[in-house]
């Protein structure tokens, strides 16, 4: 839509330079409106195809699945009010009051249709794999079976039956994921290829509806009066009047009082400090690590060399001196501290002895490595991405390896897509890598290094590790699952298949009038659905 330039605007500008223009401020008095900026416009609001943070943020505010994440990251009932989860199947009972924003109830058929659509090869959903625990999903995505063969059916309008391909202990975390959201068939089919392309083309069943979307410029979410839990939603509206990836601009908008919250990059931290804003740190849920190349012929395929590197690397020093972002934690394991085990954090239920830096032991390992590799150690190739953070990390490791071990590190900085291509083809010795969780369960990290997982870019293979992951994937018994994954993680770390560096953290600022904002490690983040605005505040 071309921008409208009101004829009166010029006169206004010339006569009243101090007037605070703009419709947002002139909204009806007492309306509780939260304003934020977005880094980009949501690329994909069709839930069967959404993969990125921004789209999932929007979907988390306008949609609701069978389950969702609560304040503490626990799984809470969503459209389903209760369920029975077994080894072979699960039954979900949908709540009577769950409604679409245009009136009709959300039924079990809406889930059946959505899931079939997501695994249909014609949809070409990148996240079809997340439905693979459902019977026949993989065969359908591979074109071997029709979409109708998917192991999900509506016993009646309010009962959804799911048949599993294999026992899936983390299924309730999966049903909170975007790909599992419901879609109403008549609405979807009425917009061939255009579902969710604009605000009127998206049907909601969540706390808000997307009422306005000016591409690239702004989005408006209005409270959904038909949402079953609408009493818990106190905001009248969420406005996104600005979309830009420029972090300095967004910070300026916050400072100017135009938005209520924003994340801070490393460059904005000192500014916010000087401006005396209250900063809040939180954990983003991601794990970061050095991924070694284990392909034959690579120096990093040598265990002693990897051990030597681990013995000189100090995650605590790395996080405080190099990353310097509050909320970031030293990486000591594959599975981050926030992930739950059976009842408590996984790392507390399965403690590990920390590895302490030890220069003498490191040099002994290096000597062994040199002997096994035939006397000389070639320079190591460090593959990393663009950006100042990636450079700082690379230079730190370069300095560390050269000063402590006399190793040479060559840095290969690549754009995102090129780096992915080189990771897949194995053109690296060490790559600075990370993983953002898809669901709140250790398995989202644990199966990464199974030999069949294509995200295992270093091609590390360990039969015992594979067997343990299979074991954890073969049962819904929480204790057995957690034990198997803990044992697998121990093997991974003993073998230094990867070297954990940090657990992602970030900092944000929030207007003092806003409370009840929840930060999640997985799914919708930040979560403003139950945010509150103080009475009488601007």
């Amino acid at each position, binding site marked *: 839509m071309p921008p*409208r330039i*009101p004829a009166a*605007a010029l006169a206004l500008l010339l006569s009243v330079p*101090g007037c605070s223009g703009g419709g947002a401020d002139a909204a009806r008095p007492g309306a509780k409106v939260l304003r934020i900026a977005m880094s980009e416009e949501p690329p994909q609001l069709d839930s069967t195809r959404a993969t990125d943070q921004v789209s999932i943020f929007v979907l988390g505010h306008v949609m609701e699945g069978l389950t969702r994440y609560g304040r503490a990251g626990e799984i809470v009932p969503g459209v389903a009010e209760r369920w029975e989860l077994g080894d072979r199947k699960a039954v979900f009972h949908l709540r009577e009051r769950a409604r679409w924003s245009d009136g009709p109830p959300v039924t079990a058929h809406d889930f059946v249709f959505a899931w079939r659509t997501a695994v249909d*090869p014609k949809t*070409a959903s990148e996240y079809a794999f997340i439905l693979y625990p459902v019977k026949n999903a993989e065969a359908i995505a591979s074109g071997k079976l029709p979409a109708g063969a998917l192991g999900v059916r509506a016993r009646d309008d309010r009962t959804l039956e799911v048949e599993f391909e294999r026992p899936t202990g983390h299924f309730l975390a999966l049903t909170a994921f975007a790909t599992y959201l419901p879609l109403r068939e008549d609405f979807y089919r009425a917009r061939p*290829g255009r579902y969710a392309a604009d605000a009127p083309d998206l049907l909601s069943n969540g706390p808000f509806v997307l009422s306005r979307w000016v591409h690239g*410029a702004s989005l408006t979410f209005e409270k959904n009066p038909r949402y079953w839990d609408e009493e818990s939603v106190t905001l009248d509206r969420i406005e996104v009047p*600005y*979309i830009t990836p420029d972090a300095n601009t967004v910070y300026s908008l916050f400072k100017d009082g135009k938005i209520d919250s924003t994340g801070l990059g490393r460059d904005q931290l000192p500014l916010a400090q000087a401006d005396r804003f209250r900063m809040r740190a939180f954990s983003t849920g991601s794990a970061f690590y050095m991924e070694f190349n284990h392909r034959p012929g690579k120096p990093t395929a040598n265990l002693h060399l990897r051990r030597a590197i681990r013995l000189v690397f100090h995650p605590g020093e790395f996080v405080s001196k190099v990353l310097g972002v509050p909320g970031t934690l030293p990486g000591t394991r594959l599975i981050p501290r926030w992930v739950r085990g059976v009842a408590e954090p996984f790392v507390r239920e399965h403690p590990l002895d920390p590895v302490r830096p030890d220069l003498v032991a490191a040099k002994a390992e290096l000597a062994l490595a040199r002997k096994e590799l035939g006397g000389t150690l070639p320079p190591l190739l460090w593959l990393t991405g663009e950006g100042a953070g990636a450079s700082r990390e690379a230079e730190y490791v370069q300095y560390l390896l050269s000063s402590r071990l006399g190793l040479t590190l060559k840095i290969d900085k690549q754009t995102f897509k090129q780096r992915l291509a080189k990771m897949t083809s194995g053109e690296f010795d060490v790559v600075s890598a990370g993983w953002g969780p898809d669901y709140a369960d250790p398995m989202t990290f644990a199966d990464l290094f199974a030999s069949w997982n294509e995200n295992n870019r270093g091609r590390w293979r360990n039969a015992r590790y594979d067997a343990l992951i299979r074991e954890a994937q073969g049962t819904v018994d929480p204790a057995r699952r957690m034990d198997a994954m803990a044992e697998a993680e121990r093997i991974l770390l003993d073998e230094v298949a990867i070297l954990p560096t940090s657990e992602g953290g970030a900092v944000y600022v929030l207007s003092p009038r806003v409370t009840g904002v929840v930060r999640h490690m997985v799914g919708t983040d930040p979560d403003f659905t139950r945010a509150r605005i103080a009475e009488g505040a601007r």
Partner: protein
Amino acid sequence: MIAYTLKRLLAGVVTVFFIATATFALMHAVPGDPLAGAKVRSPEIRANLQARYGLDRPVLVQYAVYMRNMAKGDFGISFTQQNRSVNDIIRQHFPVSAVLGLLALGFATLGGVLLGSLTAQLRGRMTDRTVLFLVVVGISVPSFVFAALAQEGVLLWNAWAGTTVLPVAGWGTFRAMILPALSLGLGTLAFLTRLMRSSLLEIVSQDYVRTARAKGLPGWRIFLFHELRNGILPVITLLGPALASITTGGFVVETVFAIPGLGRYFVQAVQALDYTVIMGLTVFYGAFLVLMVIAVDIAYGWVDPRIRVAKEGGA
């Protein structure tokens, strides 16, 4: 005249064809996979995606299909926004870039002609030197640096005034457009000032100006009807290409001021290897630039018969 116009337009179509072909070839030669994401897709999911975008067919077939669709005016569906056509992206965001570009160019032309005339009149004096110094600064400081500084300044101004004097960022009201247009037009303004000044200085010593002065015409008449009218010609020549370059070159300013212009989509598409958007926008921008150049040539030929005759004779 009509034959000349047709000939130029035909040459333009051929140019655009070559732009499209070269972009297609370069885009496929760039390393990296448009379908690669942070998380590896399994083979069957990859295959489904490739089939959806026709990437499972030989490159030459892809090229043929693409060119045929393009000839029909269909640029295809974006790889990143899978339910949005490239045509929609152009339709919705080019007007924003165009409005911003026109405003910036208007500001640059007005300012350039005014300052150029002023410095030419006051040659060698303090005002002249100060403006010339600022012109050098304006040409050398990139627009995004000025944009960031201007934003910081407005932030301070707003805080001092206790109200919104000018918006820090955003789009939709005229007031929101002022700062971005100034930032974007500053370089061109500086350039046009210098051009205008040198053009006027050359004219001041022409015979007809001396004649006018000898006839005893008042200074303002000489300036308006003899000096300015002729001195402004080089500026007009530059307006077409300047509009194209301002309109297509504003992506950094668009990012800084959170403006939903086309430039941002272009840059994002290149980073994401979004084939259809890269192709669509390159061809569109290419065609726009070619059209601007042709428009200026035709307009110029229409204004100045000598040029038309020379071109027709030469062709």
